């Protein structure tokens, strides 16, 4: 995997579990004869169609509060009962997938990090995901292409508004790049990426959107031609705002874990997962 010979995918989100990831319902039941039986649905799975294996977060105990009853598994994507379906997005392309499990069988040694410890494992993986989107996608804002596009247009080069937007977007992209070096220095010293990696993701995605908007404004309607790179990015970026955690949930997390602000009040604390849906339905009916 480290050599890139084999692609893996990450199966965390579900139609009913995004920001509130601990609400996953995909169920893994331990077989009497050993191993596990898997049922449920995952969504927003990148590369599932190419992946040999996937990391899956599933519920193994519904009678305890939701953060406690989850386990992380390794799933062979070619196993019987695993179906991958492309999910078309704004661009018309299927960058992501839905994955369905119908009595898919897992071996006993498919468990990662221990039964019931899935939440802690998922948080670590997510930190790396934010770190990757935040610090690993310096090319996403296409600063070089943006600069070339503006430079080729004498009117744009001298336009105060264009220059202001360009200066701001490049400043943000540089900030992400050099904060990335700070984070990598910390990683090299053996530290796990902290929640602040989420801030880089927020900056990166918004800067990429601003850069794309500016490039397209300079180019004009041609930027929206079907074969234009600008139009592809314009379609791709809105969804990326939610990848690895929505902006709102990241700001909650950073506010609470970095700034140590008091948490949002929660109504699901200590409630067994199996009773939560009834509680939610009752709340909606009020």
């Amino acid at each position, binding site marked *: 995997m480290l050599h890139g010979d084999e692609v893996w995918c990450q199966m965390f989100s579900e139609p009913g579990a995004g920001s509130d990831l601990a609400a996953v319902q995909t169920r893994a039941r331990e077989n009497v004869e050993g191993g596990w039986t898997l049922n449920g649905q995952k969504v927003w799975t990148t590369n599932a169609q190419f992946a040999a294996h996937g990391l899956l977060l599933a519920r193994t105990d519904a009678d305890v509060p939701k953060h406690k009853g989850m386990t992380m598994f390794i799933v062979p994507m070619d196993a019987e009962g695993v179906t991958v379906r492309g999910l078309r997005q704004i661009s018309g392309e299927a960058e992501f997938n839905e994955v369905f499990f119908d009595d898919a069988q897992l071996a006993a040694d498919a468990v990662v990090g221990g039964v019931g410890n899935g939440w802690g494992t998922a948080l670590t993986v997510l930190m790396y995901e934010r770190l990757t989107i935040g610090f690993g996608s310096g090319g996403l804002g296409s600063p070089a292409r943006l600069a070339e596009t503006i430079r080729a247009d004498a009117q744009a080069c001298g336009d105060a508004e264009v220059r202001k937007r360009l*200066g701001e977007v490049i400043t943000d992209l*540089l900030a992400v790049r050099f904060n990335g070096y700070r984070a990598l220095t910390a990683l090299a010293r053996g530290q796990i990426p902290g929640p602040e990696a989420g801030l880089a993701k927020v900056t990166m995605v918004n800067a990429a959107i601003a850069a794309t908007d500016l490039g397209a404004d300079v180019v004009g309607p041609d930027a929206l031609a079907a074969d234009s790179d600008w139009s592809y990015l314009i379609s791709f970026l809105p969804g990326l705002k939610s990848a690895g955690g929505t902006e709102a949930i990241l700001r909650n997390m950073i506010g609470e874990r970095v700034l140590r602000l008091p948490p949002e009040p929660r109504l699901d604390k200590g409630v067994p997962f199996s009773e939560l849906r009834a509680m939610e339905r009752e709340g909606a009916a009020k």
Partner: protein
Amino acid sequence: MNFALSDEQILLRESARGSLSRHHTIAAARAALETPDALPDLWPVACEAGWPGLLVSEEHGGAGLGAFDALLVAEECGRVLASVPLIGLIPATALLDAAGHEALEAVGAGELRPVYVPARPPGDTEARWTVEAAQGLRRADAPRASVEGDTVTLTGTVPFVPDAPGAQLLVAVGVTADGEPVAVAIDASADGVAVESVFRYDATRALGQVSFSGATGRRLEVGAGELADAWYLAHALIAAESIGAAQTCLDMSVAYAKERFTFGRAIGSYQSVKHELTEVLRRMENARGLQYYAGWARGAAPEEFPLAASAARSAAGAALDFAARAMINVHGGIGATWEHDAPLFFRRSQLSRRLLAGTHDATDRVAERTLATAAA
């Protein structure tokens, strides 16, 4: 590249924090609002800590440290609004050091107080060397210079020079009849030199209007590159100061958001407050990453220093502006009253963003550098 602070840098920062803490600078900032003369001159603190020699090379008797270190000190000064004249001092020492000026030893020893009289290097939309306008967007020409051997004669006015009051040696930029910039060191007490103290909104920032009318001084053997470097160094310093000030705004806002309750909950538990404070953190940390970039680039990649320092200034100016306003918002009405400390930081943000051509000019410079290096 290693972007963690070394043990020596952590020590430098801690000792700066320690020196400044003995001077109750926030209380002094408040007192100076009522009586500008009450602002203590922290030049002795800088001398005691050895900051005049920070950037001066070891062969000239200095500490031979880098811009990265100077920025850490500036950040600490900004954190407590300490009126240490770093923006005037550090670029001046850089120019004197580059020229190998004979006054360096006295400067490094704290016996002679220099100030940098800034001039903005030309760019793609403004081909002249300019100084602040007395008012308005049209920048003024840098002072006129005539050169005779080692002697330079200057005529012209430079408004809003940080740290000019009290300086003994002016390190200024003039432009000759054929448009070439020259650097000159002029005694503040020389004939034809006037430094008038100016107060603008932020009592913690000493400003002066420097006028030359046929004043003569010694030419410094530096080129346009060193003069531009001094300008960007001043930008990086004002950025670092602003980041320090933003940190205090954030710390005070977070503390208050934990102790102030409404509707039975600490206000920091509400998303609107939490997200605003997270935005302060995001902007401040972005600016800090750029501060590190600027500190690193000046020594390791000098061709990137104009971009790095301008980006740092742009991000830090916006970050402090946001942080100071957020602090007032989070505190509610009390944050906008005279007796609260929030207005001291707000005043700092308002003046800082308008000095040295303004934060917006730094943003434009980022665009200019980006376009200049883009593939045609």
